[in-house]
């Protein structure tokens, strides 16, 4: 059959398929699949018979669009969110807990070092932070600024909420990406943050501001710090194929590990989001005496650790 007659014979089918692609919802999916297979067959015929390249390109475009539509997956499955939170994320975390402990060690060891060195040598805080930053922190937690019974303005709360989202989730994502840099990147992030956290905590004890500092940080600290080491663990797991791809090629191992580590980073992002919420709207309140805040903070830690340890265990649902 000559090209022209071929085109004329199937012109309407192709036009129909084109409009079906544009407006997928209006088409019966069986019909769509049938039409797509027909277009594929026409494309193969055109190639075999060496018809002109403009026709082949046109059918190729149709086939590509049809292929993309037919085989696409649902993008964000909101229905899966509870399953993810309660089962998939904790299970994945326990499965990869080796990296979690490594990440925690990367954070804890420098944290201890920073803490002890600043406790013993109070001036060494200036190795880690500039004097301007130090006095900023001190004024944030200064006793005169925290009169019991005064709540912070709602507006400032909101402001800080925005800031914490912007800052902390960003840190998690960066730690994750940096993990691909031979795992060193993630370890570096953990170490840096741990070091500063340890140093600052010790400094707060040195200048007798522990009464304001620890109640402030303990509540959201659970979510935030654990999320940070989870993000670091995800980053380490992402970079691991560069060194130990197992039985796969490095590229394939990377793709596998990337898929798995996504669960961890999503969980870490959600936890940091929660931490930002708590940090902005609860931690800064001075409505309550510090024992209450410490108590609430301790409960938060128990909740987070319990969730991660126990959620998702037991029979499959």
């Amino acid at each position, binding site marked *: *059959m000559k090209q*022209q007659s*071929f085109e004329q014979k199937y012109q309407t089918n192709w036009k129909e398929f084109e409009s079906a692609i544009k407006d997928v919802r209006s088409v019966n999916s069986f019909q769509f699949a049938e039409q797509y297979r027909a277009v594929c067959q026409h494309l193969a015929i055109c190639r075999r018979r060496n018809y002109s390249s403009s026709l082949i390109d046109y059918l190729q*475009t149709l086939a590509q669009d049809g*292929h993309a539509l037919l085989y696409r997956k649902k993008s964000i499955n909101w229905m899966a969110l509870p399953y993810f939170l309660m089962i998939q994320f904790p299970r994945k975390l326990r499965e990869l807990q080796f990296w979690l402990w490594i990440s925690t060690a990367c954070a804890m060891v420098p944290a201890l070092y920073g803490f002890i060195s600043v406790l013993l040598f109070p001036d060494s805080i200036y190795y880690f932070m500039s004097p301007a930053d130090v006095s900023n922190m001190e004024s944030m937690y200064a006793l005169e600024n925290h009169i019991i019974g005064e709540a912070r303005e709602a507006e400032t709360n909101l402001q800080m909420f925005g800031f914490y989202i*912007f800052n902390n*989730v960003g840190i998690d994502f960066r730690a994750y990406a940096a993990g691909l840099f031979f795992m060193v990147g993630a370890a570096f992030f953990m170490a840096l943050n741990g070091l500063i956290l340890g140093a600052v905590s010790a400094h707060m004890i040195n200048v007798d501001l522990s009464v304001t500092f620890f109640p402030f940080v303990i509540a959201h600290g659970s979510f935030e710090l654990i999320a940070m080491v989870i993000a670091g663990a995800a980053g380490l797991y992402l970079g691991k194929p560069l060194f130990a791809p197992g039985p796969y090629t490095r590229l394939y191992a990377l793709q596998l590990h990337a898929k798995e580590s996504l669960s961890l980073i999503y969980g870490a992002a959600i936890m940091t989001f929660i931490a930002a919420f708590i940090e902005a709207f609860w931690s800064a309140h001075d409505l309550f005496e510090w024992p209450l805040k410490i108590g609430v903070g301790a409960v938060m830690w128990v909740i987070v650790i319990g969730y991660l340890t126990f959620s998702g265990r037991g029979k499959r649902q």
Partner: protein
Amino acid sequence: MQVVDTRYAVETPEGIDLEYIPANFIPRGFAFLIDLLIRIAFIIVIAIAFSIAFPSGANQAFLLIGYFLIDWFYPIFFEIGPRQGTPGKWAMKLKVIHVDGTAVNFSSSFLRNTLRVLDGQPVLFYAVGIFTTLTNNKNQRLGDLAANTVVVYQDPKKRKIADNNLETLIPPASIPRDLLPWIVALDERSDQLSQSRLAELCGLLAPHFSGQSNQFIASQINPMANYIRGQR
């Protein structure tokens, strides 16, 4: 004949090959710059909008959240949309797909855009990313490799619709049969060629048109192509 081409083909379950042309870092770089400008414009717009809507401190919060979303989620939002690419990519006629031809989903998009942090070193000059695309036959950067995606050119949609009353000319019998599809191909791209180039190419057919000038042969290309395509 060995062909050096950046196209790669994916075999589909229906048994046909879909060809894609990956894009290298130059159009992608331009797309990135366009996106950068769009992002800055977005931020300015929401900064103004929020400072009007919430004249007090709360606007900072929304601005920061907006900035966060634009920073990390602007590309993801567009890549899982119908255009399969950010406005910058659309302007450069690119789209993002999985290597097997399917559209990207949230996870892949999240992965490739989060790893942008690594690809962008140093400081958004993308040296790492560019280097990675050069080592890869599909021009994938680190984020693409991890997410199994590739940035390809969009398909051209326009073509000439066959008309019914066209001039035809039976090609001279001395033209070898395997040259006939090339005459059709030449006709289809004749509007992209300059006159002198077209005449030069028609010079290859001169042996079959004894004594005629190249320009005359060029005018006969379309009628011959119509005949070969089946117009009677």
